[in-house]
């Protein structure tokens, strides 16, 4: 999957489900990619994927999901 | 504290720091942009130590850096601020007193949870001394062609110097894979660097390796030296390499020289063994020659008497009276002649036979022998004579003996072909050049006379002994065993050479190489005409110590019509000569006599009468008149035993040769 496709998919999903937690997982750590992920409202998790790297996104997502249900 | 003391204190500190290789540390807080530094750093940067410790603007880091290095260091620091982990740079700083120091800054960045750099800490070490040493070392290494390397066990790469790469013909690099280095070593040689994780700690770094340089493929010898430093979990190798090709090549040349030396010694020894062998052979011949020569002398005297007397009886014998007695006498004469011939051969073999060499046309000689050969060989054997005439060179040889030799060889050839075959006798010119001269025939111009049979041949063992006297392959009684040794003696005495080629079942070729006679003016000797008779006006003085021989000789001469005077020794002969009633025309003297030899006698009489004709008689005339086994050209000799006809002819020849008397 090319990076552009990933970001486009995320952007389309965001339009369908504004509240759903999303993260872009990529080794492409260009500032531009990070900025675009942020603009969509998606998290940015750099490859290689580690528990430490994923943890902030997962806890943020859990928090958001709990608060939306509440 | 007075200011001057501060300065003095600072100076002392600086000296101390300088001696120790000054070092300072820094701690750059990236988020706040503050640089903290220790007293030594402050010293180098001319900062107030307390202030430096408390924190100065980060920009201060560049303040003391030499202007020429500043841009480079800003870029390097930008790398750290951008996320690079390691910092390792050498650069110049200008100290407060204006001196320029080389420092090595080594540091690293610390990242926060988001992998963003937050601190940049490091150590600044004065490496001015080291830089100079390095510079000297670098110059020494490149000038001396020494490449350095450092290898830590377990890693795939080796830290190397440019010179190291250059020596192996590799692209300059600071580190090379172990495999790349070992790949230039020729197959079969040990690796230059131990294979990673081979588990073997080398005993020594001393070694020599053959390499094919990577860039030009040149084969070089590389020596490796160095140290092995054992560490907790393994080892580290620090060493050098250098090219030893020249030394190796010199070693190789020396080795080759040594090897050829051995070969040359071997050749010398072989040559020497050959010479010794030849000397032994010569000594053997000499010993046998002396023995046979001594016997021949007495034997010839006896034969002269026997032959002479039998001859005399036969000449006066009335054939009709007793044919049986005459046959017996003839048989006796034949036996005595055979004995004489044997004695001749003994002398020929021992090279004591007086030869009468003269320019000889071999082709003509062979043509003249044709009948004799066909008669002697005859029967089932076809004799083919193949002489390269005209154009065949003359040789200088005794024609009678040469005939003997050829006959001898022909008889041998016949005997080798019991079932018949062809015997070829050939003669042709033969030039042996220096470059291809075989051991047996030195370079020169020869007439080669070959006698070839298609007979049974000889084994190598037989071949080795054929020239030995009394060696014969013939049945007892069939041969004297003197044939080939006589041939050998003749050829050697004539200044020639002889070779024999033979193998069992494939015949034998004997080749005589007689030196070409370059003196072509000499016409071949005219056949001898026997003018048997003499006259009483011709006086012959006969000197012979053996009474029987003398009586026989005198008898013949008187029978021929000469006036004869006789003496039994030299002194008597001189007295007779001096008496007035004698006018001696010819002196006929034995050579070997007690008290005065024939030669001495002749010399005395020549003093008195220079035109005196002298005929020597001898069975063993070796020392007296023969030099080098050849007759003195001015000397005439008749060998014992001689016959009536032989003596008659020789005497007449000499007397007729005198200038005619008026």
């Amino acid at each position, binding site marked *: 999957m090319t990076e552009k496709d990933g970001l486009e998919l995320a952007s389309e999903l965001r339009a369908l489900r504004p509240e759903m937690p999303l993260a872009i997982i990529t080794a492409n750590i260009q500032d531009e990619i990070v900025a675009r992920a942020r603009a969509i409202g998606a998290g940015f998790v750099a490859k290689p994927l580690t528990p430490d790297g994923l943890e902030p996104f997962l806890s943020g997502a859990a928090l958001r999901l709990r608060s939306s249900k509440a | 504290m007075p200011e001057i003391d501060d300065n003095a204190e600072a100076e002392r500190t600086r000296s101390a720091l300088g001696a120790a290789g000054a070092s300072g540390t820094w701690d750059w807080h990236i988020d706040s942009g503050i640089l903290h530094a220790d007293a030594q750093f402050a010293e180098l940067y001319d900062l107030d130590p307390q202030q430096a410790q408390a924190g100065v603007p980060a920009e201060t880091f560049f303040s003391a850096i030499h202007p020429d290095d500043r841009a480079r260091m800003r870029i390097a620091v930008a790398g750290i601020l951008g996320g690079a982990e390691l910092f390792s740079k050498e650069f110049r700083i200008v100290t407060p007193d204006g001196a320029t120091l080389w420092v090595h800054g080594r540091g690293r960045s610390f990242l926060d949870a988001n992998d963003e750099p937050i601190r940049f800490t490091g150590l600044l070490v004065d490496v001015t001394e080291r830089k100079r040493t390095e510079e000297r070392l670098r110059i020494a290494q490149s000038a001396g062609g020494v490449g350095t390397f450092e290898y830590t066990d*377990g890693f795939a790469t080796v830290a190397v110097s440019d010179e190291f790469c250059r020596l192996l013909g590799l692209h300059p690099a600071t580190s090379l894979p172990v495999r790349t280095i070992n790949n230039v070593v020729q197959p079969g040689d040990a690796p230059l660097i131990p294979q990673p994780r081979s588990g073997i700690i080398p005993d020594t770094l001393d070694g020599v390796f053959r390499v094919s340089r990577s860039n030009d493929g040149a084969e070089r010898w590389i020596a490796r030296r160095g140290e092995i430093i054992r560490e907790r979990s393994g080892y580290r190798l620090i060493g050098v390499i250098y090219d030893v090709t020249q030394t190796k090549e010199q070693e190789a040349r020396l080795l080759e020289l040594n090897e050829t030396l051995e070969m040359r010694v071997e050749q010398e020894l072989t040559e020497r063994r050959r010479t010794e062998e030849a000397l032994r052979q010569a000594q053997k011949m000499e010993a046998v020659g002396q023995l046979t020569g001594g016997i021949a002398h007495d034997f010839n005297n006896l034969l002269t008497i026997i032959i002479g007397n039998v001859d005399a009886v036969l000449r006066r014998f009335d054939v009709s009276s007793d044919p049986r007695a005459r046959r017996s006498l003839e048989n006796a004469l034949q036996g005595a002649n055979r004995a004489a011939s044997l004695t001749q051969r003994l002398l020929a073999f021992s090279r004591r036979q007086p030869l009468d060499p003269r320019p000889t046309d071999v082709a003509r000689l062979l043509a003249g022998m044709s009948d004799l050969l066909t008669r002697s060989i005859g029967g089932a054997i076809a004799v083919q004579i193949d002489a390269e005439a005209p154009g065949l060179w003359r040789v200088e040889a005794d024609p009678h003996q040469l005939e003997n030799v050829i006959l001898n060889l022909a008889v041998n050839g016949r005997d080798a072909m019991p079932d018949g075959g062809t015997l070829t006798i050939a003669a042709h010119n033969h030039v042996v050049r220096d470059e291809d001269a075989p051991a047996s025939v030195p370079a020169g111009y020869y007439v080669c006379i070959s006698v070839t049979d298609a007979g049974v041949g000889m084994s190598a063992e037989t071949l080795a002994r054929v020239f030995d006297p009394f060696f014969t392959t013939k049945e007892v009684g069939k041969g004297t065993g003197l044939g080939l040794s006589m041939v050998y003696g003749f050829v050697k005495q004539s200044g020639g050479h002889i070779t024999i080629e033979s193998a069992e079942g494939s015949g034998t070729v004997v080749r005589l190489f007689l030196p070409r006679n370059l003196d072509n003016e000499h016409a071949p000797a005219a056949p001898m005409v026997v003018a048997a008779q003499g006259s009483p006006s011709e006086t012959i003085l006969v000197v012979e110590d053996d009474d029987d021989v003398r009586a026989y000789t005198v008898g013949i001469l008187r029978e021929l019509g000469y006036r004869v005077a006789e003496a039994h020794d030299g002194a008597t002969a001189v007295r007779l000569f001096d008496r007035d009633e004698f006018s001696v025309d010819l002196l006929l003297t034995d050579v070997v006599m007690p008290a005065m030899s024939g030669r001495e006698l002749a010399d005395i009489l020549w003093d008195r009468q220079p035109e005196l004709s002298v005929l020597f008689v001898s069975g063993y005339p070796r020392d007296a008149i023969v030099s080098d086994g050849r007759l003195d050209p001015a000397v005439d000799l008749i060998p014992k035993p001689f016959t009536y006809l032989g003596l008659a002819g020789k005497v007449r020849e000499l007397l007729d040769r005198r200038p005619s008397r008026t």
Partner: protein
Amino acid sequence: MIPATVTLGDLERDALTEILNIGVSRAAANLRKMIDEQVTLSVPSIEVLSRRRAARMISEREIADLIAVRQDFDGPFSGRALLIFPETNSLDLVRAVTGGELSNDQVVEIEREALGETGNVILNSCLATMANMLKRSLTMTIPEVLRGNGDMLFEVGEEGAAEGLVLFLYIDFAVRKRDIRGYIAMIMGIPSLEVLKELLDEFIERVVGQDA
């Protein structure tokens, strides 16, 4: 011959070295996360070479066949990035990144995928760092795994090969107790290298300021 318009000056070379130093540091950090073992990546040395020269240099250093992870990049400057290992290293690397718990068969099975992912992380570390430091953005294709010798990887002999120059970094993946090493090569045409040189000058201007 390397045209003068793409020949790097000392400072430009230093700047590019530092940028790649950052990239490689990031790659090392990422590799550490994957291998969970001490990894040292040497400060890279940089050379600009012809493709032919690069192929020769790599075959001079590596006897075995090579394996490479390839990613093309496009933007203000474009080209192709290669992470190259000796083929004999590749299973070692796969074993390292998979934690050494897999059987040999399993390692072979996932080799291509594991190498692709590892290359992706390392090449992205370098390329993304370049983009960030030069304040430009690049698009990248997904990684592809190739095998072959130097000539094949650098496409020596193919049309237009003479055009292409190679930015060649020798990086020493000094992984203790593992015989792993590799190279990063970026193949770029002359126009792209000219742009890169301009961007480096901008970077130097930003960093060095009046000290230049």
